[in-house]
C-alpha cells in the first residue's frame, strides 16, 4: 500500500471489528505469522480468510505461485507468502490459512503460517522502511512498532502475480526443461 492510499484510508472511519474503543480513526491491520515473522495487511484490503485447501498447480508458474483454488465458484490464485518474500516454502501446519486480499479488484490468496490478530497502531507507531538494497523491500510498504516487536506491512500490489512475471516464468521453465 502506498502512502496516498494509506492516507485515504486514514480519512475513513475504521471498522470496529476489533471492538476496541481506542482504534477510532486509526487504520486497522490484520497481522499474521510467516516463518515466525509478523506481517500485516490493511484490514480494508482483506476480503476473507480461508482454510487451507489443496491448490491446483499451474504449469510453468513461478515457484511462489502455488496454483489456484476454488473460492466459492471463482478461481483464486494463491501465493506462498514466505516463498514470495524469499524465505523458503511455508511449512505445512494445521493453522495454515489463505488470507484473501483484493488488489486492483483482483483477489489473490496469500498462504500464511497462521493469523495472529488485528492491530490499530497510532500515528507514532508507523516507521518508514530503512533504506535497503534488498529486492524484497519492494514488497514491504512500511513498519509498525508493536509491543511484541516489529510488524512488516505488505505492499500488496507488488504481491500480485502479474502477466509479465507469468510469461517470463513460463519461458524460464520451458528453457529449464530442455
Amino acid at each position: 500500500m502506498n502512502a496516498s492510499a494509506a492516507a485515504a484510508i486514514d480519512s475513513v472511519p475504521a471498522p470496529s471489528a476489533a471492538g476496541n474503543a481506542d482504534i477510532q480513526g486509526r487504520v486497522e491491520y490484520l497481522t499474521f505469522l510467516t516463518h515466525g515473522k509478523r506481517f500485516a495487511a490493511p484490514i480494508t484490503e482483506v476480503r476473507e480468510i480461508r482454510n487451507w485447501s489443496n491448490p491446483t498447480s499451474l504449469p510453468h508458474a513461478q515457484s511462489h505461485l502455488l496454483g489456484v483454488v476454488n473460492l466459492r465458484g471463482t478461481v483464486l490464485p494463491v501465493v506462498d507468502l514466505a516463498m514470495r518474500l524469499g524465505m523458503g516454502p511455508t511449512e505445512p501446519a494445521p493453522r495454515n490459512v489463505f488470507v484473501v486480499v483484493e488488489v486492483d479488484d483482483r483477489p489473490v490468496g496469500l498462504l500464511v503460517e497462521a493469523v495472529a490478530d488485528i492491530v490499530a497502531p497510532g500515528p507514532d507507531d508507523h516507521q518508514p522502511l530503512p533504506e535497503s538494497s534488498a529486492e524484497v523491500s519492494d514488497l514491504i510498504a512500511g513498519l509498525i512498532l508493536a509491543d511484541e516487536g516489529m510488524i512488516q506491512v505488505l505492499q500488496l500490489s507488488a504481491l500480485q502475480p502479474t502477466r509479465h512475471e507469468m510469461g517470463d516464468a513460463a519461458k524460464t521453465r520451458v528453457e529449464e526443461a530442455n
Partner: protein
Amino acid sequence: MEAIRQAFFEECDELLDQLEEGLLALQDGAGDGDTIGAVFRAVHSIKGGAGAFALDVLTDYAHAFENVLDQVRSGTLALDQDVVMVLLRAADVLADVARATARDEVPDAGAIAAAKAELSSLDPNGGAASAPPAAEPVFAPLALDGLDDLPDLPDPEGAPDDDGPTPALPTGAVRDWTIDFEPLPGLLTSGNEPLYFFRSLAVLGELRVSCDTTGLPGLDRLDPSDLMLRWRVHLIPTAFDLTRTEIENVFDFAEGLCHLKIVEGTPARDDTLPEPIANPAIDPTTSAPPPPSVPSPDPTAAPRPESAGAVQLGPLPQAAVVPLPPAAGTSARPVAKKPGTGVNPSEMRAKPQSTSVRVDLQRVDDLVNLVGEIVIAQAMLSQIASEPARHQELVGTLDSLNQLTLEVQDSVMAIRALPVKPLFQRMSRIVREAAQMTSKDVRLTTSGEDTQIDKTVIELLADPLTHMIRNAVDHGLEEPKTRKAAGKAATGTITLSAAQRSDRVLVEIADDGAGIDRAKVLAKAREKGLIEADTNPEPAEIDRLLFLPGFSTSDQVSELSGRGVGMDVVNRAIQDLSGTIAIQSDPGRGTKLTVSLPLTLAILDGMIVSCRGERYVLPLASIVETQILEGSKIEGVAGGGQVVLMQDHMVPMFDLGLLLGRPYVGVVEEERTVLLIEPGDGAPFALVVDGIESQRQVVVKGLGESVGRIPGVSAATILGDGQVALILDGVGLQMLARRSHAKPERLAS
C-alpha cells in the same frame, strides 16, 4: 404512456434490423419480392408507430422513405446496386432519426434533408406521389379517363345515402359498405392516425382500401402534419346486421376532422367490373375474398363526395389497393378466408414482436436439473435445521447449496450467449459510411454470423471492431485507380468472419488491400522513437508496431481513422476482453486481423484426464481418438522426437506432464493412454496422459488477470468435488511442444 413509447422504440429497433437485413439481402442479390415487401413493411410500421406518438420528424422521414420503397415494390423503380446503396444510407439515417427521437434529441436535420434529397432523386415522379402499383395491372386501366371533371358529381347510383337495405340484396345476406374518408387538416395533430381507423374497421369485416394520393403536393411543399391522402374503403362486414352507426363510431374521435361518407353497397362502378366483389348470392360464411388479380373497386373511379371539391383531381389519379382481412378472432367467417395480396394481418396490425433469445435445449435442461437439486438441498436444510445436534451437516448442506446456486448462475449466464450477427450487421453500416467518406468502393462479406459470444463481449467488441473496419477501409484498401492499376477489382472487399475454435471465438477482419507498407511503418516508428534506429525487426514485428500507443502512418490525419490512437485502443480493448489480436499482412494482397476471444461464460464439453496427480480438462471437440498403447508402438525418430501411428498417420507424440513441466514420478507404465488431438488449425498430435477419468460438461472459468495467460491453458473449471481443474488448449499445447522441443519421454528401461 412512457412504457408504450418505450415499447415502440424497442420494436423500432427490431424493424430497423429487419430493414437493414432485407436491404443487405437485396444488395447481395439474395432478395426477392418477399424481401422487398418486408423492407417496405418495416418502414411502414415505423411510420405508423411514429405517427401514433406524433413523432413528426420520424413520421415524415419514414414516409418519404416508404414512398420510394413503394415504387421499388411496385416495380416502377428498378432495383440496381446504386438504388440499394441509397436505400441503405436512407435506412442508416432512419435509424439515426429513430434513435435520436428515442432519446428525445433533435435529429440531425441536415442528414435528413440530404437523405430525403437522395431518396427523391430516385423517385421517377419527383417524390410527389406513389406510382400506380404495377402489381395490380387491372387497376390502372380502369383509371379515370375523363374524371377530371367528376369530383362534384352527385352520389353514385346504387349507393343511396340511407340506412335501408338495398332492395337487390336478399335479407340476411351481407351488405357491403363503401366508406369515403377524407381527413381534414388537423387530423394528425389532434392525435389521430388513419391506420387505427382502418384497424378498427378491419374488426368489422374485410376491407378493401384504396388510397387517393393525387392531393399530395411535391415533396418540397409537403407538410407532414397535413394529411393529403383520401381513402375509399370497401367494407365486407363479418356480421350481416352491421349498422351505419357502428361504422360511424369508428370515426368518433375524428368528428369534425374529416369528411366521412358512408354508403351502403359496393362502389358505384362495381357493376362494370367483370366479377363483382360482393356477389349477394355468395354465402357469407364460405365466400372467400377474390384472388388478388381480381380488380378491386377503384376509389377514384367513383365520384368524390361533395367535400372532394376542395381537392382537385389530377388527370391521372393514382391509387394503391391494400386489402385488409378482418382481424382474427372477431371474424364470423374466417374458415375459408385467405389473406389478401400477401399482406399478413399481424404485420398490418404492427403488433410488437416479442424479443427472444435462442437457447440450446441442453442448457435449459441443465438449469431444470440444477433447480431440482436446489429444491432438494433446501428441503434437507429445513430438516437438519430442526435438529440442533446436526450442526455439522447443516454447514455441509449449506455449502452444496452455495455451489448449486453458483452453478445456476453460470447456466443462466451461458444463456446470454448471442450470435454475432447483429454486430456484423452494424459493421456493414460502418463500411458504407467509411467507403463514402473515403470515396472508395467497398464490399463487405461476412461469414459465421451464427457464432455465439456472450452478450457483454459482443457489446464491448463493437468499438474495437468499428476501429478495425474503418482502418481497413481508410488505410488498408487502395484508391479504385490504384487498385485497377494493380490488376485488382476496383471494388475492395472486406471480409468479416467469426468462428468458434474449441474454447475461443476467432473474429477475423481481412481486406484485400495493399497490405502494410512495412518500410513506411518502420520509418515512422524510428521517427517517433518507438524503436531503436539501428534495429532491424522481422516483418511480423514491424506489423506489431501498429499496436504501439501513438502510432499512425497516415500522412494526413483523416477524419475517419487517423487520430493515431486507433490500433492501440483496439489492442487494449481486446485485451480487456481477455482476448488477443494478431496481425498478418501480405504486401499487395491485403491485411488480416485476427481477434481471438475467450468464451468466458461458456460451458464446455470436456474430457477429464489425470496426469501426475492433477486433473485437467481437454475440450472434447479437439479430441479425435483415445487409445491405450503398448510402449513398443512408440517409435523414436532421429533428433530425439517420438512418433506414433494413429489413424494411419505418423503423428508426433508428447507427454502432457512433460509439456506442463511435471516430470515422471516413479516407474513409467508400459501401457500408455494416448489421445489424438486435432487443434483448431494445427496439425494433429498425440498426447500421453496418465489416465482418463470421465467425460462431462464443465463450466469455463476465466483464470483472471491475476494469473495471466498460461501457455497451454485456456481457462479453468471447478469439478464436482470443488477442486479447480485447468482446461487445456490444443493449440497452446502444440506451441508449448514446439517452443520447448519437449524432450521425448524416455521409455522405462
